[in-house]
């Protein structure tokens, strides 16, 4: 059943512009951070530092753009059933709405990782063109790991928002604003050492290795993200009970 649902979800995105738009947003983020790289500091352009672009792009993107884009993707997939009035047809099949939402979330998770990997590919290519000789294999692999874990972690961190949208049906605006503020607030959370450890968005950085975190902080981060996932599962489950 789950396999069919996943297949159906990916079918539904056929010809849908949202994937292109999300990809476009990712590319734009790369371009914008590249523009920032033109900034000179003590006669040295940022972009000329090996690894600067790769590092800066993922953190800026995570604070300002990508979590909102990913939650938009997730909430779009969920809200469209209501908007396009296909939900009643699905309910008559019958399709378990919780399973349906889970399938959508799994897909959103995959996209989250893919978006981060796309951003990695862009930044890596640019760095390789600019100064291939300055890049070490270790640096590139380290960044690949950071991007991958960012993608995984960011999705977990925002999963409660998507679950909430699934429950409220028409809340995709709320999801967007909330996801944006939520990720943006990470900027402030990162100013305090304690808050940085427990705030989900910055916990992602602790786990991914972008922040220099000790073992303890990483563990706390993992626990926090697990809490996020459990929270979203609870939201879905509570909703299930309500409709039954």
């Amino acid at each position: 059943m789950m396999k069919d649902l996943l297949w159906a979800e990916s079918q539904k995105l056929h010809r849908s512009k949202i994937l292109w738009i999300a990809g476009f947003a990712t590319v734009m983020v790369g371009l914008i951070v590249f523009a920032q790289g033109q900034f000179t500091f003590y006669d040295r352009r940022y972009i000329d530092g090996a690894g600067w672009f790769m590092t800066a792009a993922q953190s800026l993107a995570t604070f300002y753009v990508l979590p909102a884009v990913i939650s938009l993707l997730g909430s779009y997939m969920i809200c469209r059933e209501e908007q396009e009035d296909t939900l009643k047809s699905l309910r008559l099949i019958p399709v378990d709405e919780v399973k349906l939402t889970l399938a959508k979330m799994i897909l959103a998770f995959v996209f989250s990782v893919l978006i981060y990997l796309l951003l990695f590919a862009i930044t890596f290519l640019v760095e390789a063109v600019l100064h291939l000789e300055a890049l070490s294999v270790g640096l590139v692999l380290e960044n690949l790991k950071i991007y991958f874990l960012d993608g995984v972690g960011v999705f977990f961190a925002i999963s409660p928002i998507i679950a909430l949208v699934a429950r409220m049906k028409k809340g995709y605006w709320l999801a967007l604003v909330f996801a944006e503020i939520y990720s943006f607030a990470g900027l402030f959370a990162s100013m305090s050492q304690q808050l940085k450890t427990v705030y989900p968005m910055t916990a992602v950085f602790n786990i991914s290795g972008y922040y220099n975190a000790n073992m303890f902080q990483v563990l706390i981060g993992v626990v926090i993200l697990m809490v996020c996932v459990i929270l979203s599962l609870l939201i879905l489950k509570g909703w299930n009970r309500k409709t039954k």
Partner: protein
Amino acid sequence: MSDLVIETKKLTKIYGEQTAVNSVNLHVKPGRIYGLLGRNGAGKTTIMKMILGLTPITSGEVDVFGQNIKGHEKRIYPRIGAIIETPGFYPNLTGTENLEIFAKLRGTPQPNAVKNALEVVGLPYKDKKLFSKYSLGMKQRLGIANAILHDPELLILDEPTNGLDPIGIAEVRNFIKNLSVERGKTILISSHILSEISLLADDIGIIDHGVLLEESSMDELEKKNRKYIQLQVSDIPKASLILERQFHVTDYAVQDEHNLRLYDTALDMAAINKALVVQDVAVISSQICNDTLEDYFKQITGGAGIA
């Protein structure tokens, strides 16, 4: 367990302060087409939604295939095909792709299900046209195709001919009739168009302001609605005398001082007219009338009429 396919007992739906459906007892018999007739906003869609469990019931009960649908969705839904209001589909996919998604999720076993369903409603298979570019009529057809995709025993069709052109309406009517006659499906269909229901249904329920005013079979209704000859003459007493004496007519009714109804339509009207005129009774008009469902509907809803 009764042998009814759908049975509702005192089905009631209250939205806030408004009673949308009031204590409705429907009885849909197997293998028959049940027409639910009512004006826009009479409560037809709400009844169908409650039968399908798509909206909570305020009070009363619904049995489908002798079972309460709540908690038995997995067993009952696969036996039902339905369209409620204008059905929604994914706009970025073609009709075929849309149906393939639903077929897969239903676990429809026959590989040709999508193709067959599209053929039945007269839509092309593997067409390139996106659902968002469909006309209202095509959307409705696709909705019907989706409802019959898994070959269900019971079809619940809410205004299936909505948005179709006259030819399309006739086509859909024929194929609904076929489904019932040839394949023994039970069909619950709603419409606000009287002629539609009278041409299709075996049984009929008339609903107005959430109340089921009448439920009977078409045959019974037809018996009630007799054909007659409407005769408009200048002098009723004289005319009736002529009719009784000369033509031995007894089965007639005087309506007012100029109108008279003859219930024997086999009478020789030419002769009657001639006799009346000869004996100085002016015949203003004479015509064969049918006491239609329309009149009947007006009668039971209190003159409001329909459509």
